[in-house]
């Protein structure tokens, strides 16, 4: 299932830099890489070739699940800047 059609319903004001910053060395050693499947917006993808996470941070719904679930507990997670990120019109 592609989550993109769901994300099209949202209003985003993307920043130019990511508010989600993983520790690359930890990601390489991570067993579950659970962020790549639990994220409700599909923000994280694993790039096998480069051995690093692709982070589509502009799709983030700011729920914080990745931070709590991060196997290495090392994901640097903060809220996007005040004028940035997702806006829910329904909620």
């Amino acid at each position, binding site marked *: 299932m592609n989550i993109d059609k769901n994300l099209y319903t949202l209003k985003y004001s993307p920043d130019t830099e990511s508010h989600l910053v993983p520790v690359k060395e930890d990601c390489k050693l991570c067993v579950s890489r659970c962020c790549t499947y639990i994220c409700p917006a599909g923000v994280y993808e694993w790039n096998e070739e480069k051995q690093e996470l692709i982070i589509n941070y502009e799709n983030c719904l700011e*729920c914080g*699940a990745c931070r*709590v679930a991060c196997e290495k507990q090392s994901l640097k997670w903060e809220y*996007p800047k005040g004028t940035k990120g997702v806006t829910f019109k329904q909620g």
Partner: protein
Amino acid sequence: MINREEKKTDVIVVGAGPAGIACGITLARAGKEVVIIERGLFAGSKNVFGGAIYTHSVKELFPNFETEAPLERRTVEHNYAILGEKDATTISYKKDGNGSYSIIRAKFDRWMADEAKKAGAYLVEETVVRELIVENGKVIGVRTELEEYFADIVVLADGVNSLLARQIGLRKDIETKDVALSVKEVIKLDKDIINQRFNIKDDEGAIVEIFGGPMLGMLGLGFMYTNTDSVTIGLGVTLNELVKANYRPFELLEQLKNHPKIAPLIEGGTLKEYSAHMIPEGGYKKIPKLVSDGVMVVGDAAMLVNNLHWEGTNLALISGKLAGETAIEALDDKDFSKKSLSRYEKKLNQSFVMKDMKTYKDLFDVMHVRKKAFLDYYLRKVNAFFEMFTSADGVPKRENYWKFIKSIFTDRGIIELFKDVFAIIKLVWSILV
């Protein structure tokens, strides 16, 4: 540091959700200077919940909200749907005026924030508080991306993630078993179609609380709410289950939407908005420290959610109100110490908020251990019973009954059955006594 006094206010509230606004308006009405700092474009723009607010608690803060606030539908029916893989058993309770309304958070929270502004609170939007300013162990203000603001008291209403409560050690890191990850969709449908499908009138609403289905065997629940011209459907599953089972939350929701009991209710609708949010599920035992010198924690940041009864916003509103009242007393006494602010904790303990949290203190522990029983086997068995009871297949009824009874002993096993019964007795005892 020169302009510290210029930038000082009585109280800073971080977060304009129900808890933050309730706190802010309580202070503003008492003539105190209060600044509410919200990271979204407007109050409500980062907020997500299931779908209903409870009249009693909202009235405590907004006595006329029923005529003034943007409401969707007045709940007249609660449905409890127990889903098997392909079948379902539903219990339905209908009574008008039983005390809740469906709302759209973006509209309702904005309305509440406007009321707070009218009462004299300052609302600063599009501003993220990055950290608390602590001096000699006392919280004295907040640091945003651009500025520092100072206050006698800072109230943390910054939601389930509460990075600020964590910063000053009031809470530990959340564990995956103590939060549910919830995804939901608001689906646009004609008003008349909603009325027909849910058997309600224009301003009447129905709630469906969903057990089982794609969540069979997991600590997770689904929900539906009717809005004026849309239907909300969502589910929340404990995060550790999603991690363990390798599930994508939106795929579970898709399965729920395709369940034969649910699909006809949303057929032909178009997706208006998709959203996700975490719900604190740790219960009483996971409530963080609520006060320290110059600071109080309210709402989701304080993990105040009664998961069995689907209550969160009302606990948020009341905790915010009680923190506001405590702040008024502290300001009058000019005492912002932990001891002075611990009156908030006492007030909470005396209110239904903490009493309910205590009542269900063991619920999630039991459910974590016995979920394969209570959120899988017995849900299936309820449906199996009705499948047997409603079938007319030429098999004598007595034979069917005995087969059904026997099956419980053979597929569950006598020891597990004893454990289930014991768990229920223990749980009911902990709730009642």
